[in-house]
């Protein structure tokens, strides 16, 4: 995987999240995973096509999912990851992916994005590529979101 393709994802997260009311995210670590990710509770997957092909997964635990949904709905209390919370998280993922696409355009890479699929189920396994891929852990005031990025230039 081309390391240049990672920054557009991180920059999008750092740009978009404060705009929708979150503390400024910090990149806390980066690690390599192989083939499979383990769902922390809520994992949102989006796919890319055109000059970039692949998938990104925003992976978080239930507490963080509830925190995100609540913040996006102006502080409304969220007790479980229900349909409304899933919808809020899907919307956030759309914004992140759209901003990432804009960042990729700056690298002269045109991309199209699929709709998000919100998968719920702690410890279920999701395979998003056949090889290794990079995961970036972002921290927002103690809440962690892992961005698993399995994308490549389409030759």
């Amino acid at each position, binding site marked *: 995987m081309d390391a240049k393709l990672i920054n557009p994802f991180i920059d999008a997260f750092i740009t978009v999240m404060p705009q929708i009311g979150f503390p400024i995210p910090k990149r806390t670590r980066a690690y390599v995973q192989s083939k499979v990710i383990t769902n922390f509770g809520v994992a949102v997957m*989006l796919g890319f096509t055109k000059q970039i092909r692949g998938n990104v997964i925003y992976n978080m635990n239930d507490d963080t999912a509830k925190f995100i949904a609540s913040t996006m709905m102006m502080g409304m209390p969220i007790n479980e990851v229900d349909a409304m919370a899933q919808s809020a998280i899907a919307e956030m993922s759309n914004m992140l992916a759209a901003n990432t696409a804009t960042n990729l355009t700056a690298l002269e890479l045109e991309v199209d*994005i*699929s*709709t998000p699929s919100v*998968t*719920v189920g702690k410890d279920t*396994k999701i395979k998003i590529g056949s090889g290794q891929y990079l995961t970036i852990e972002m921290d927002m005031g103690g809440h962690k979101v892992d961005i698993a990025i399995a994308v490549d230039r389409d030759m």
Partner: protein
Amino acid sequence: MEKVRVMIVDDSKISRTILANHLSKTNFEVVAMAANAAEALKLYQEHNPELVTMDMNLPDADGIECTKRIRGFDPEAKIIMISAMKDASLVAKGRAVGISAFLQKPVSTNDIIDTLLLLSQQQANKVAVLRESYAKAFERALQQGLLNIIGVNSKTSVDSYDKRYLEIDGVAVIIGLTGYPVGRAIMYMSRDTVKAFTSTMLGTDEVTDEEMNEAVEEAANIVIGRGASNINDVFKDKEMRITPPGTISGSGIKIASPKLTTFKLTASSQVGDIFINVGFAEGE
């Protein structure tokens, strides 16, 4: 099926045939064809179509006059002007008599669909368009794909899917759809079916978990890719692409896709039931 009933008004037999061919590939049903204004009014009164396509040049009156007469009978009539020439003065005159949309010949199938979606007030019609033009393309792909991949015949069906999320015990492969319309397709089957499916595919009873995941992933890639190709064959001016697959296995998996119009495709076969849940974002 919830077909959208259309009347074509055009003096040229060739034009009527081309348009009817376009429409027949989607969920439109051409209920009447008129070659002149007098016939148009008579047939409108008989068939009460939901939509009229109107040519500008008719032997006994022009399209504007014909529209006036039809809307004199039914002020709610939805009429699309399809003409060789489209200029500001024609559009202004057309708007004045209540024409809803203007298209220029030759018209692409996709332009017609888009125009209909815009004109269609009823949710049912939007769903019908997505079902007939898009979901069914995946249904055909599912049936053909299973025959090619594991050599089994299956009985397939398409149903609207209104539940908020999909619950899966077994293997699910998510493939994103980009371009037009944007969405996602999920092929899934129960653990027992995966086992029978993989055994049939590999010709052995001894199959590993990894082989089972890969078998479903490969099948999903082939079937959903073919479904997108079926759609691209009809709608030549816009291209649907598929993302690489994401494969989930386990029990109690829930997948939510907020704001999508979704359909459940079922293929019943000797290895068990194989499903595709396909969802499209409405509009663009």
